[in-house]
């Protein structure tokens, strides 16, 4: 993704998408009073639409090239079978009324390629200018658009067409106006702000108490300040602190007391003890410690929530993989129905480029189907009568008549989602070190409190109550409870800065113990897109020339293998004319006056089999053939290539004593070859999602340690959520990202050892923190029991002990680099160019 400054597009580049212009021709546009060139009719159409709508300022403001809209202009009937009523039945479209009583409809759209704020502005402006649209608003962060329109004026299909015409791929989104996570985030933000404001107020009153060590303040003023503190602290405890109180109560009721119990106990104890002191004019209050404690805890929780939201930009988006409507055949008539109404036994028709609406068996038709979504394989698979198709996959070039075998709700894709959910629920709850310590600690603490009260009954009964209370509060496990979350917050932020978004803090706790790392192949260790890796010439044609001709022929092809030829080094690529696409065979066209064919061997040039056979041994990838109609000219071996740092990372992990496994859905033998190349010793190829989960469980039982899984596709989602800890590749599917504990924002595999190092440093810091917190509490308790801790010191000590824990956590970044250097020097791969991550 390259950047652009306004309308200053360099010569020889498409004004709209920034790709190199073809040599022979271009498609002109008139933008901002200047003549500009575009690379294809698709870009020309999108650009013209933008200009005609009077929104050409978009080009001044964008800081990135626009996404390529597709080669041809968008046909009028693209969304012809999208019907509002069918979508309202399935919950995509909501009905409503506007102020004038007119009937309105509302829908949330997902827009792909929403790259920068200027895109958001463009879509919002153009929709709001559309007659019949009452309101449209774009959320750039989440890539969603909310649009409301008058039911009697226009239909959703008009809205979709308008957005598509601007050059963006768009889909309706089920889930209403705000997802659960959005609401959760708003609440969390408000809790945080209330706690923050409360803390400022209470602290500045508390400074008065700290400064008054000599107790010279008048009783009247003192009580007044106390009441004010109590007044401000109350909402902080019961509103901001509510998640902790509720979780503590729920976990107690379920008989599984976790870390929230001592936290809630500390909050409530300190709060009610202070209230009591206000009421009976006791010697000390601790409101400052309470608010500070709540605020620090909330900051950590909020950051985790924010990370989770960023990772699953579109939550529960899997339904978008299935089409909304299907073409059903009944009594020799075609009718368009909501896909969710399909039942086993229905006949549906799927044409080239369409997504298969439900699982089924092919009755008629032949062609390639792209199953990348399911198996992770980038190369499409050929299907014919009798073979089984899975809903959600896309037909590349075939027209099929399909007998539906399962309704979408019971289909394979839905089963995978179910597996993700159940795997997540079945994950063993992690008992943190701090949990174990603090539970014992609280019990001991309560006993000591009682003990000191009893003892002081014999010494000085009038002081007994206050001393018991001081013991309780001084030893309050604030620092203890903060020790772990503070460290995780810092570690999470550190990793985010490096490009690893940690969505579940728990994952970090397991990472230092991990004994085995399991990688998926396609899209994880490899780039997930085809490239030319080998070349054979059979005539006097050099590779550069052959590639240029291939690039010209394949330029407009939607076939996945065509992407291997897209990149040319020349600024003025060749252009093919008289193109003819033969589905399932290849492409024919005229380049520089000569006619060429590219594609399957038998079709490209059926002659001289023997000569070409010997040169092209079977092996990795697929061969694509180039011929001039009579003789075979050249052949390209096209395959997925490993990521540049794959081998290095595998070695680094093995050097650190970890077992590295390759777990792939690909059954073609490439997994084994790939493993040999990268030095991975354990391989399992051709595994279905179910088998992947089984493999993982077996591995855990044998190896006797937690397993880290790294994957990217929908087929990886169940195994990602079943693993003890899992990373997803950021370019992967939404489902995979939602199932994983962390997401690699940059396709930098070096982040895997990085994360392990950081987690190790984090664990060390947590241990230090716990040690310090315990030492502080243990040394203060006897003093408090002896009645030697003056109230101001108790209060200051509590706040300071929490601060020490937080400050110590900040040292994690430095420690992580040291750990990294010691255990896995090779993993610190700074050589890879950072720009590569976003190039897709």
């Amino acid at each position, binding site marked *: 993704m390259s950047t652009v400054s306004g309308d200053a597009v360099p010569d020889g580049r498409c004004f709209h998408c920034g790709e190199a212009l073809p040599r022979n021709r271009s498609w002109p546009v008139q933008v*901002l009073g200047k003549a500009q060139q575009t690379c294809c009719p698709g870009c020309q159409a999108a650009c013209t639409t933008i200009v005609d709508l009077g929104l050409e300022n978009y080009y001044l403001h964008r800081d990135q090239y626009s996404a390529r809209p597709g080669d041809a202009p968008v046909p009028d009937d693209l969304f012809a079978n999208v019907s509002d009523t069918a979508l309202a039945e399935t919950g995509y479209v909501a009905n409503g009324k506007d102020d004038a009583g007119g009937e309105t409809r509302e829908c949330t759209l997902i827009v792909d390629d929403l790259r920068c704020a200027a895109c958001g502005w463009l879509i919002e402006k153009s929709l709001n200018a559309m007659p019949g649209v009452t309101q449209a608003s774009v959320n750039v962060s989440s890539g969603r658009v909310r649009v409301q329109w008058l039911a009697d004026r226009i239909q959703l299909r008009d809205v979709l067409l308008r957005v598509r015409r601007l050059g963006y791929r768009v889909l309706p989104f089920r889930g209403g106006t705000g997802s659960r996570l959005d609401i959760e985030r708003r609440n969390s933000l408000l809790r945080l702000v209330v706690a923050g404001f409360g803390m400022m107020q209470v602290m500045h009153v508390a400074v008065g108490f700290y400064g008054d060590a000599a107790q010279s303040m008048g009783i009247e003023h003192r009580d007044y300040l106390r009441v004010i503190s109590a007044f401000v602290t109350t909402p902080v405890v019961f509103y901001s602190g509510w998640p902790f109180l509720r979780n503590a109560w729920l976990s107690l009721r379920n008989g599984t007391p976790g870390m929230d119990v001592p936290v809630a106990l500390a909050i409530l104890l300190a709060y009610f003890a202070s209230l009591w002191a206000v009421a009976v004019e006791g010697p000390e209050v601790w409101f400052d410690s309470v608010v500070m404690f709540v605020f620090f805890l909330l900051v950590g929780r909020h950051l985790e929530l924010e990370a989770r939201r960023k990772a699953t930009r579109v939550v529960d988006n899997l339904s978008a993989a299935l089409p909304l409507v299907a073409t059903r055949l009944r009594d020799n008539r075609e009718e368009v129905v909501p896909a969710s109404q399909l039942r086993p036994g229905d006949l549906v028709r799927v044409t080239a480029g369409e997504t298969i609406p439900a699982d089924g068996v092919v009755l008629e038709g032949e062609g390639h189907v792209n199953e990348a979504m399911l198996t992770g394989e980038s190369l499409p698979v050929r299907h014919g009568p009798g073979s089984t198709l899975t809903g959600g996959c896309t037909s590349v070039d075939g027209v099929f008549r399909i007998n539906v075998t399962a309704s979408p709700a019971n289909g394979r894709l839905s089963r995978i989602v179910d597996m993700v959910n159940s795997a997540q629920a079945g994950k063993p709850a992690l008992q943190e070190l701090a949990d174990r310590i603090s539970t014992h600690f609280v019990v001991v603490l309560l006993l000591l409190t009682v003990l000191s009260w009893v003892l002081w009954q014999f010494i000085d009964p009038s002081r007994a109550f206050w001393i018991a209370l001081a013991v309780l509060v001084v030893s309050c496990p604030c620092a203890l409870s903060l020790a772990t979350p503070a460290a995780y917050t810092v570690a999470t932020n550190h990793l985010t800065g490096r490009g690893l978004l940690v969505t579940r803090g728990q994952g970090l706790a397991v990472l230092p113990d991990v004994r085995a790392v399991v990688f998926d192949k396609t899209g994880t260790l490899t780039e997930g897109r085809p490239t030319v890796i080998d070349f054979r010439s059979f005539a006097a044609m050099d590779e550069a020339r052959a590639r240029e001709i291939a690039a010209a022929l394949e330029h407009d092809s939607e076939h996945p293998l065509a992407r291997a030829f897209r990149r040319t080094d020349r600024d003025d690529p060749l252009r093919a004319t008289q193109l003819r696409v033969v589905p399932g065979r290849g492409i024919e066209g005229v380049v520089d006056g000569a006619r060429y064919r590219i594609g399957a061997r038998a079709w490209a040039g059926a002659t001289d089999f023997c000569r070409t056979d010997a040169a092209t041994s079977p092996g990795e990838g697929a061969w694509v053939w180039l011929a001039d109609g009579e003789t075979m000219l050249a052949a390209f071996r096209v395959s997925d290539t490993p990521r540049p740092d794959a081998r290095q990372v595998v070695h680094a992990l093995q050097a650190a004593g970890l077992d590295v496994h390759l777990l792939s859905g690909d059954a073609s033998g490439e997994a084994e070859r790939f493993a040999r190349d990268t030095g991975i010793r354990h391989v399992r190829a051709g595994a279905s999602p179910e088998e992947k989960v089984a493999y993982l469980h077996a591995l855990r039982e044998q190896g006797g340690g937690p397993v880290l899984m790294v994957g990217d596709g929908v087929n990886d989602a169940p195994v990602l959520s079943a693993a003890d800890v899992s990373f997803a590749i950021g370019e992967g599917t939404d489902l995979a990202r939602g199932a994983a504990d962390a997401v690699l924002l940059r396709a930098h595999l070096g982040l895997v050892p990085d994360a392990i190092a950081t987690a190790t440093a984090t664990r060390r810091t947590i241990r230090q923190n716990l040690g310090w917190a315990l030492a502080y509490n243990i040394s203060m308790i006897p003093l408090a029991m002896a009645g030697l801790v003056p109230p101001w010191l108790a209060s200051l000590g509590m706040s300071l002990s929490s601060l020490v824990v937080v400050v110590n956590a900040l040292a994690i970044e430095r420690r992580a680099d040291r750990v990294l250097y010691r255990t896995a020097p090779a993993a610190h791969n700074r050589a890879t160019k950072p720009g590569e991550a976003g190039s897709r």
Partner: protein
Amino acid sequence: MSALYFLIPMSLLVLGGAIGMFIWSLRKGQYDDLQGPAHRIIFDEREDQVRRDRQE
């Protein structure tokens, strides 16, 4: 010191007002998208102005 009896309640009122305004902005969805609005204000500038800035 009696000023405290007036000033602190005043500061609490201001605090309440601040939180009230925050709630209002939260409900309005002002924190839902932290990227788009930051740029939106620039787009409605006059185009010749933008062009001049770019040339400088």
